[in-house]
């Protein structure tokens, strides 16, 4: 039963059936121009050719270091910044075109931001913030407020106590619950969580993660979960996408990617996770230095200057995403048969 008064069946808007990806992104590019004097025009290649699908009902996590393009990808998906090129299909329909204009897409795709305080209007009560979305979409005022209260109760905040509060009067965890309630107020199918729990205390984080899982089951949601915390990612995701310098390095089922990572970068990321076992401490950093400047990315494979497996061919050839297992794809020449890399598997095994 839906807690939202007059809530629709979450699958009423479904078109393509369960096999059709909810969101399908291909060839997504976003370069930001850098203004620097009168020199030649330079660009930051924030997102540089990203393809992925988000399946219905799954949680896809996007992980990577700061500056790898995961937040830019999020904003592109939500249309908060305009893409340079690339195609985005929502349930099989191109977003921004006639069949699926941005306005109707946004009613089905909502976002929860990292900074729980900055994402709530300081002059509006919690209830007003949640009711704003339904109101501008034509829900009468009283009904919108009722829906806001029902959602507050659903995210674990007693409406009587919290509806009239202002954002500065509640804690970070409570604010993030309010942000989740607001995202759900438009009854979306896709919710993008951009570092939504990263700023919370560990105990609060766990509660909010559990809440997210409950809500997903109850409303039939699909999540895109952006995070840099691999423990959280392991807990919540069905599939994981690892990004490096605006490209996809590896994508696959979360148990495969996190248990048996194939890309050297993913391996380094996982190895750099602090261990709880004192006998098994991480002694040295596996990933040295900062990621290279996205204005001038390295030639060939972007990871080669920091990679332990790097060979001559890596600086010459850009590795395509190729399957190592069904559904598990990696952009690494050392994993691609016939790439010329000495560690590459032979063609026969791969076939």
């Amino acid at each position, binding site marked *: 039963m839906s807690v939202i008064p007059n809530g629709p069946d979450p699958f009423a808007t479904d078109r393509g059936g369960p096999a059709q990806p909810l969101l399908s992104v291909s060839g997504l590019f976003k370069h930001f121009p850098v203004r620097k004097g009168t020199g030649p025009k330079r660009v930051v290649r924030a997102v540089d050719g990203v393809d992925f699908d988000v399946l219905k009902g799954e949680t896809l996590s996007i992980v990577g270091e700061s500056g790898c393009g995961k937040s830019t990808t999020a904003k592109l998906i939500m249309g908060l910044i305009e893409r340079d090129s690339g195609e985005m299909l929502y349930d099989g329909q191109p977003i921004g075109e006639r069949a699926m204009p941005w306005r109707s897409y946004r009613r089905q795709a909502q976002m929860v931001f990292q900074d729980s305080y900055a994402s709530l209007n*300081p002059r509006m009560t919690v209830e007003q913030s949640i009711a704003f979305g339904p109101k501008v979409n034509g829900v009468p005022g009283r009904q919108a407020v009722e829906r806001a209260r029902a959602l507050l109760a659903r995210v674990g905040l007693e409406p009587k106590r919290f509806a009239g509060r202002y954002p500065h009067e509640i804690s970070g965890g409570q604010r993030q619950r309010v942000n989740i309630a607001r995202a759900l107020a438009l009854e979306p199918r896709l919710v993008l969580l951009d570092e939504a729990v990263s700023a919370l205390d560990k105990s609060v984080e766990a509660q909010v993660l559990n809440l997210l899982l409950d809500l997903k089951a109850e409303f039939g949601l699909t999540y895109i979960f952006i995070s840099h915390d691999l423990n959280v990612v392991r807990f919540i995701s069905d599939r994981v996408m690892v990004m490096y310098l605006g490209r996809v390095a590896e994508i696959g089922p979360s148990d495969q990617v996190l248990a048996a990572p194939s890309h050297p970068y993913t391996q380094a990321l996982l190895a750099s996770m602090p261990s709880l076992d004192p006998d098994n401490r991480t002694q040295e950093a596996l990933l040295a230095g900062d990621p290279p400047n996205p204005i001038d990315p390295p030639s060939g494979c972007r990871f080669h200057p920091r990679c332990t497996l790097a060979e001559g061919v890596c600086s010459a050839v850009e590795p395509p995403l190729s399957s190592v297992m069904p559904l598990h794809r990696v952009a690494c020449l050392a994993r691609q048969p016939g790439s010329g890399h000495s560690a590459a598997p032979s063609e026969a095994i791969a076939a």
Partner: protein
Amino acid sequence: MTAPLTAGSVALDGNITAAPDAPEAFIASRGFWGHVGHRLVRDPVAMAAGILIVIVIAIAILSPWITPMDPYKGSMLRRLKPVGDATYWLGSDELGRDMISRLMLGSRLSLFMGVTPVLIAFVIGSGIGILAGYVGGWTNTILMRTIDVFFAFPSVLLAIALSGALGAGIFNSIVSLTCVFVPQIARVAESVTTGIRRRDYIDAAKLSGASAFTIMRVQVLGNVIGPIFVYSTSLISVSMILASGLSFLGLGVRPPEPEWGLMLNTLRTAIYVNPVVAALPGLAIFIVSISFNLFSDGLRSAMEIRQ
């Protein structure tokens, strides 16, 4: 329960039933303006200034009925009586009219000329500034560069030039003073709006499918109106002084209408005969404008609530 709940309520986060018997006052939360009012009441200087403003406004409204003598009736025999005269408590002017009655009635026009242009400019300037700040890009450039042209002239000069071009009179003075203040308010409005347009809650509002106008009205306005309002109240004193200046130059109110600036003008010939009386309208302008400034300062510090 007065302090905003921040750190202390973290523990309540997970377990909302921890305090089921929270008192009613805990539930009702004071909004932003509630906090501002609360702090303003506790600021003695701002309150004194505020009370003075209220008294002057009351006098202005009631003056036709409460003036001790007819402010228009002169007497050739009783000109320029000193302050403290038995009949004329604050003396009489160069035509033998009662100063206190004229000052009281004069407060009407002086206040009107101080507040009206600022009020009109507040509405227009906020509109332009918020639009420029929120939309950004070319709209911002075109609007703000146009506004900048007005800053090339000192405001006094601009007011005199516009009034001179439009001709004397109350209406024309108000128009020219409004033109002086619109760019100033618009610039403040633009800068506060630019400061908040990239906040996440604006993005969240965009994601809800709200139109730009709705976002400006519901999400932006409440966050920028405070600073713009404070700045505008500080302009009231400037407006009063400029209006008095226009009247002094013969571009504003015309005699025999009492207005403080005009009174200052007509009494200037008496400055060697009775300097105290001649200075009274100036003193009135000074007191009222400084009250507006002090009140606006108090309002600003009351709004500096850490969020």
